[in-house]
């Protein structure tokens, strides 16, 4: 017997109040909060593939809010607070596990940056601690903190409220909740163009026909610049593959999330037992969901340096997602020069953790045609004014 469907599979209608382009985590969360917070239910979420089959299915599920800059801490901490109530809100298990995140320091500069970030986080109400190597060992006994290695662990920042969640469950729960509130989720419906008349976005052309809308909200990750270009909108984005991998299933051995910039890898252990690892993007632009092997090789080398116990683990699967990287490694959210066309992109390597937070704020932006205060610093116009939110290196992760 087939299990009950969690959401209605809808046929596209001729017209909607709001069209969301991209049924990933962000698109689904946006539709959910449009319906729940703003009573806007005449909404369609369109996706070229299947629901949540892009980066929502391909990320390493790390959730944290320990960003350096006030603007980033604001949106990510808003998201983390929503994560903390999301299972109850959606009535569905998300396997949200606040197991903490360690960001390791391997040099004097790392230590200085880490201590500074801890202080900045605390000022912003984000939980953060600085740990000495022996405290790192207490939190995560399998990390090699011995002084004799090439890049010894000199300490770490620790955010206890950080953690992981089961990405598929998050997507399904959001889809079910949005669908129950009347949102149409339409898979295999690729947006091939945005129609603009007199400076206003009025409709999308899709592989399943033309659909008119009062408002069109882009949320298409690595493909956002392709869709935006059809509306005559150039974006400061570069599209890259970002790889991740898992080991075979292992006994519980890794109790937290460990990230390291200098020895570049981030590692957690999923509930099922596989070690989940990621690192940086492939340097070459590409829309192909496949990365180069040397990226995998270097992140495995980094993982072995930090966790000698992994030496006999096997890689089970590797894959890539297509991410949109902005010049300051911060997202681009808000209004565009085209009326009724809204933008949520540029999340690059770190969009998953923001899912409920951006859904909340993007829905507000669309409903009120004005940026939500938490996303107001992330406008497209900052690349003219120069008011960047430069999280390159500051964000506790190398991009």
């Amino acid at each position, binding site marked *: 017997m087939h299990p009950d469907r969690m959401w209605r599979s809808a046929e596209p209608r001729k017209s909607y109040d709001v069209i969301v382009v991209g049924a990933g985590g962000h698109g689904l969360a946006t539709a959910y909060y449009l319906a729940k917070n703003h009573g806007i239910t005449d909404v369609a979420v369109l996706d070229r593939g299947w629901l949540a089959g892009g980066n929502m299915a391909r990320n390493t599920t790390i959730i944290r809010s320990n960003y350096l800059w006030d603007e980033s801490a604001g949106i990510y901490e808003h998201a983390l607070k929503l994560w903390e109530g999301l299972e109850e809100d959606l009535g569905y298990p998300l396997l949200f596990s606040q197991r903490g995140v360690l960001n390791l320091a391997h040099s004097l500069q790392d230590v200085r940056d880490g201590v500074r970030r801890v202080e900045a986080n605390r000022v912003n109400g984000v939980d953060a601690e600085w740990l000495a190597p022996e405290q790192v060992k207490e939190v995560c006994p399998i990390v090699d903190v011995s002084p004799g290695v090439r890049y010894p662990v000199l300490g770490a920042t620790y955010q206890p409220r950080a953690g992981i969640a089961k990405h598929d469950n998050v997507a399904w729960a959001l889809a079910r909740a949005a669908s129950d509130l009347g949102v149409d989720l339409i898979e295999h419906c690729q947006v091939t163009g945005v129609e603009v008349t007199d400076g206003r976005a009025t409709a999308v052309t899709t592989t399943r026909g033309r659909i008119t809308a009062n408002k069109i909200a882009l949320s298409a990750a690595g*493909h956002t*610049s*392709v869709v935006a270009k059809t509306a005559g909108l*150039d*974006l*400061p*984005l*570069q*599209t890259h593959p970002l790889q991740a991998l898992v080991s075979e299933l292992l006994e519980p051995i890794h109790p937290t999330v460990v990230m390291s910039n200098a020895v570049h890898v981030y590692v957690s252990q999923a509930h099922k037992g596989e070690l989940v690892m990621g690192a940086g993007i492939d340097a*070459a*632009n*590409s*829309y*192909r969901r*496949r990365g180069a092997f040397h990226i995998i090789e270097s992140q495995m080398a980094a993982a072995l340096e930090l966790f000698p116990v992994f030496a006999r683990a096997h890689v089970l699967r590797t894959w890539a997602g297509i991410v949109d990287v902005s*010049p300051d490694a911060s997202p681009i959210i808000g209004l565009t020069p085209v009326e009724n066309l809204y933008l949520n992109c540029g999340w690059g390597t770190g969009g998953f953790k923001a899912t409920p937070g951006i859904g909340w704020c993007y829905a507000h932006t669309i409903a009120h045609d004005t940026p939500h205060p938490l996303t107001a610093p992330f406008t497209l116009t900052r*690349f*003219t*004014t*120069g008011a960047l939110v430069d999280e390159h290196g500051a964000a506790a992760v190398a991009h």
Partner: protein
Amino acid sequence: MAYPEDPAGLSDEEWGQYLFFRDNPEGEFAERWSHSAGCRRWFNVVRDTRSNRIRAVYLPAQTRPVIG
């Protein structure tokens, strides 16, 4: 991406365009490569970003060929 002839003469918007905005096509993409593990020469490539297939290779002094 050529450096502007008169940087001080650009508006904020034009300077932002020069600094931050680059082509990001899903398809043919012109880029400059260096054969760093071999002859160390620089050369131009047109690559299809959907497949990573190389569509054309040409010298830096040559203009981008039209691909049929």
